[in-house]
């Protein structure tokens, strides 16, 4: 039995969580261990992650992999990017002006006011074709792709 399952059952036994909450937690653990299904977490082991961009379909995650002296594996759901971009359209105009100004000062002249909801899906789909490969001088190799 995994450590997480033991902890959940221990919390249930101690009365810290209800049976329903324990079931929800156990379901979350089980779904994390299974193959990715729409809306459920993908495997957590970096060795199970894709090694390159997917050839077809809408990408689900953005992967950042660093190999060399440092080992970095980061997986970010693209739904987070989608939700973030949609949120920008609801930011009050005064706040958005300040954000745009600050980003402009930092060298990123992106006007989020021009970002339309229909553009967001196109951006996400186009990310499938994106792949960044950086060979750093310190020997690290950085790869960023979506799959």
């Amino acid at each position, binding site marked *: 039995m995994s450590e997480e399952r033991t902890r959940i059952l221990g919390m249930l036994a101690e009365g810290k969580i209800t049976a329903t909450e324990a079931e929800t*937690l156990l379901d979350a653990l089980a779904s994390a261990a299974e193959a990715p299904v729409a809306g459920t*977490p993908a495997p957590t082991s*970096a060795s199970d992650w894709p090694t390159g961009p997917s050839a077809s379909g809408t990408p689900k995650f953005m992967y950042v992999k660093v190999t060399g002296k440092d*080992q970095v*594996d980061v*997986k970010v759901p693209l739904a*987070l990017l989608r*939700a973030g971009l949609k949120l920008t359209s609801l930011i009050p105009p005064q706040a958005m002006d300040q954000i745009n100004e600050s980003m402009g000062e930092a060298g990123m002249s992106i006007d989020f006011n021009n970002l339309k909801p229909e553009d967001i899906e196109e951006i996400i789909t186009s990310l499938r074709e994106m792949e960044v490969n950086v060979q750093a001088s310190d020997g690290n190799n950085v790869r960023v792709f979506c799959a």
Partner: protein
Amino acid sequence: MTVILPPLVVDVRVKEAGTRGFRIWFPFVLLWPLLIVIVGFALIVALLVDAALCLSGARYHHYSLLLLKSLHLLAEVRGTHAHINSPDSLVDVDIY
């Protein structure tokens, strides 16, 4: 209708060279009841503000929507995993 489901479990493991390190395995689901109360209260306030802004003719009156979308953003954090293994430290962050 989109179901907004905040993270269930947050698992953070940090270990630096020469130290024992630590692990935080936090069942975020335990905070859901508190989150529901806070968001519910904030939503009522935001709806009142939106109604007042709308009646006064302000162009922007979407604070309640902004609140819901922020909660949606929090929900979409689920599935984020980060594993950093450098010669000095080991960091693992998993959000389910």
